[in-house]
């Protein structure tokens, strides 16, 4: 702006000089033109200085500096923000911009909000919630009715929503409080695919939630990973004064602070020296140039279950953000938890004292991580990473390449390299299975069937998050003994939903020499998925229920019998389990238009279950099957069903995704 003003002042001075010359009817001499130039420059300097001074008085050149009711983005401490990167790296910027990393935290705007704010009204927690836009802002009005007998009007509270989280599967919102920049948690979340508002607690594997609008959760927890260089800055007297380098997960989260790089590369000679050099750029970290351990740690700084080592580190984080920078040894500055071989006893003990169920909320009892977003923990336990060179970048790519033919949205879904949904990921190293006959001989399944997809056996969907089952990122082998001991469903029975653990153990023993464990009569006779649905805990029910809708499993197991079990999930005590069950149910013939509300009243859910059973009874009858508790007429063997169902202990399961 100052350049514009300077030019304007110069042009005006020259124009005045010309006019003056015309009035006097003689052109100006060289001396006069020199004087005009000096006066013009002086005027330009004065105007620029006045403009800058005015900006300083207003708190900075951007509106961000004037905001007081939410955390603000201030690019300092070596950070410059993605806007600066864009100028020189347009393709990388563009691919990042299309990724869901960018939208992890956004300031609500017409461009960023995908939820319904067009006067949408919903009723939850015994209250009416209305979502609407007002000017540039987004608001929620909450009406709390008085008791029925009271004649007083309802209590009304209006909240301004100042930050959002996510935009891919769900969009959560945070509201401004009267407590500095501390944010309150909006009790409702927008489900993108379903296009509806649901209680925030309903999207997690957790017992039914109550109205929770606590302040400070974002400032303490989300700020750790959903922004670049978050600093909570807690002040006991005034509340949080949180600052971030940039909202969302952007360039400098993975490449480190870029101020030095940007300054160095302002010089074109430095840029071209780097263009023509085979050496790594010393001014910035490129995870692709790091060792497989260090590059994975860049992802692991967020995608892991971790804890800072001591109170001093936590204080430093609160003030200055994490000490870790991409390229550093992640484990030097924080403790990444491992369930079994965790040697750092002090941190673990401290954690267990404050949160006794910490591990079971995140790991299966055999040490495999069971919540989404913690994939680095999974990979740490993988032999391919421990003894080989497997890293996150072996399969994933953070910037879609120019010659990748996939639509940008398809790439952005999991940010996988081309071909990585098939066996390419594994045969990069395990080249022996590139040959179709060798692959089929190893898998005992046709080479092009889902049973010959490496992932399906070695990375089954045993992780939960985002209201679905997600692939485990620990590469391991299916094992019935582990299924029994840890309760973690095995890959074979997650595809062959109609088979028993006995069937699986016999196959694994015959094909791979895995010893068959001792099994109970029911483990030998009843299909494993049926038992997980009927008597498993909420985590097992969610995983099994999700697989009832998984196409390879439906193809391998048949679907005529599934309605009876998915109907059971419609009346589950966990919201997420009901949601997953309903989503799988809709995939069955005759259920595409089945109407059901997974966050409806208890009565409506019970009615939904009965209606689903009715629809199932009217459909094609399944063949009799003892493992599936289907009798001669294709009907459920109700006595057995009820007997196994009554054994469900239903322990409280809270998965901290």
């Amino acid at each position, binding site marked *: 702006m100052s350049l514009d003003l300077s030019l304007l002042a110069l042009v005006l001075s020259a124009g005045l000089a010309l006019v003056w010359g015309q009035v006097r009817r003689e052109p100006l001499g060289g001396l006069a033109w020199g004087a005009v130039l000096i006066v013009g420059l002086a005027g330009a300097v004065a105007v620029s200085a006045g403009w800058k001074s005015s900006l300083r008085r207003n708190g900075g050149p951007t509106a961000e500096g004037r905001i007081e009711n939410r955390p603000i983005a201030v690019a300092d401490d070596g950070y410059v923000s993605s806007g600066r990167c864009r*100028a020189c790296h347009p393709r990388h910027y563009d691919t990042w911009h299309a990724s869901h990393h960018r939208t992890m935290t956004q300031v609500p705007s017409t461009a960023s909000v995908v939820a319904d704010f067009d006067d949408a009204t919903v009723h939850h927690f015994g209250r009416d919630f209305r979502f609407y836009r007002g000017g540039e802002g987004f608001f929620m009005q909450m009406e709390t009715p008085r008791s029925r007998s009271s004649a007083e009007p309802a209590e009304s509270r209006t909240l301004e929503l100042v930050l959002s989280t996510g935009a891919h599967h769900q969009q959560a919102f945070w509201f401004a409080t009267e407590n500095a920049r501390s944010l309150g948690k909006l009790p409702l979340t927008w489900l993108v695919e379903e296009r509806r508002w649901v209680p925030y607690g309903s999207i997690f594997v957790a017992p039914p939630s109550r109205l929770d609008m606590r302040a400070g959760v974002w400032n303490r927890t989300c700020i750790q990973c959903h922004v670049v260089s978050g600093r909570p800055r807690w002040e006991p007297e005034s509340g949080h004064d949180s600052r971030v380098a940039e909202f969302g997960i952007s360039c400098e989260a993975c490449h480190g602070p870029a101020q030095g790089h940007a300054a160095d590369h302002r010089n074109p000679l430095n840029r071209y020296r780097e*263009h023509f050099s085979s050496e790594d750029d010393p001014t910035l970290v490129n995870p692709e140039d790091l060792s497989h351990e260090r590059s994975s740690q860049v992802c692991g700084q967020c995608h892991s279950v971790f804890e800072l080592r001591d109170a001093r580190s936590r204080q430093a984080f609160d003030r200055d953000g994490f000490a870790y920078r991409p390229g550093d040894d992640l484990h030097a500055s924080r403790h990444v938890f491992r369930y079994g071989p965790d040697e750092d006893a002090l941190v673990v003990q401290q954690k267990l004292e404050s949160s006794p169920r910490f591990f079971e909320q995140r790991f299966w009892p055999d040490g495999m991580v069971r919540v989404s977003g913690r994939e680095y923990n999974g990979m740490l336990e993988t032999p391919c990473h421990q003894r080989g060179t497997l890293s996150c970048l072996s399969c994933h790519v953070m910037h879609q390449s*120019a010659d990748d033919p996939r639509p940008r949205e398809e790439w952005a879904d999991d940010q996988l390299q081309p071909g990585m949904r098939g066996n390419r990921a594994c045969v990069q190293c395990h080249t022996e299975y590139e040959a179709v006959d060798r692959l089929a001989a190893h898998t005992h399944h046709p080479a092009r069937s889902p049973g010959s997809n490496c992932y399906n056996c070695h990375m089954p969907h045993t992780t939960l998050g985002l209201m679905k089952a997600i692939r485990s990122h620990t590469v391991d082998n299916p094992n019935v003994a582990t299924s029994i001991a840890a309760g973690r469903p095995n890959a074979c029975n997650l595809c062959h939903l109609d088979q028993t653990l006995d069937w699986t153990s016999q196959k694994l023993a015959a094909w791979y020499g895995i010893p068959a464990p001792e099994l109970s009569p029911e483990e030998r006779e009843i299909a494993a998925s049926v038992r997980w649905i009927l008597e498993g805990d909420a985590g097992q029910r969610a995983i099994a229920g999700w697989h009832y809708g998984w196409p390879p499993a439906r193809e391998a197991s048949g679907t005529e019998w599934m309605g009876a079990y998915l109907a059971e999930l419609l009346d589950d005590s966990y919201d997420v389990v009901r949601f997953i069950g309903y989503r799988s149910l809709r995939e069955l013939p005759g259920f595409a238009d089945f109407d059901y509300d997974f966050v409806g009243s208890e009565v409506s859910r019970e009615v939904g279950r009965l209606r689903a059973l009715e629809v199932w009874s009217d459909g094609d009858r399944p063949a009799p099957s003892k493992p599936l508790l289907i009798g001669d007429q294709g009907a459920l063997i109700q006595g057995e069903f009820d007997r196994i169902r009554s054994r469900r202990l239903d322990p409280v399961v809270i998965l901290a995704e």
Partner: protein
Amino acid sequence: MTEIPDESNEALLLRTRRRHLVFGWWALFGFALLGLVLEGLHGFKVHWFLDSGYETRRLLWRLAHAHGVLLALVQLGFAASLPFAWPDDSRGLRLASTSLLLAGLLLPLGFFVGGIEIYGSDPGPGIVLSPVGGVCLLIAVGRTAWALAFCRASP
């Protein structure tokens, strides 16, 4: 004001005029054709021209087209203004003419070649031609302006 002994000033003016007219019209043809090609790249949604990663190439080739066409028109204007500017200054004429021809070639070609291989937002090494062409253009324009302002024209 040195005269070239073996060629009359009038002959030099004629030769120079013809040279700029030929160059100008052919450059206009060539760079207008480049414009058509660029439109074609848009029309057929060619990814190595339109994708976001190729923003630099798109900019450089558009600059090549624009500068090429404009400088072709400048050559024609220069040819038209010759008798007014250089009634008798053959050295100045040669300097301005050569510089303008070099500018008409180097400036747009620098943009075009620089856009063939790009490094993010940085053009390829061919871009060095453009500033050289730019300097030539300044010399030609400055020298012509000077000649027009201070020579006693006799068309």
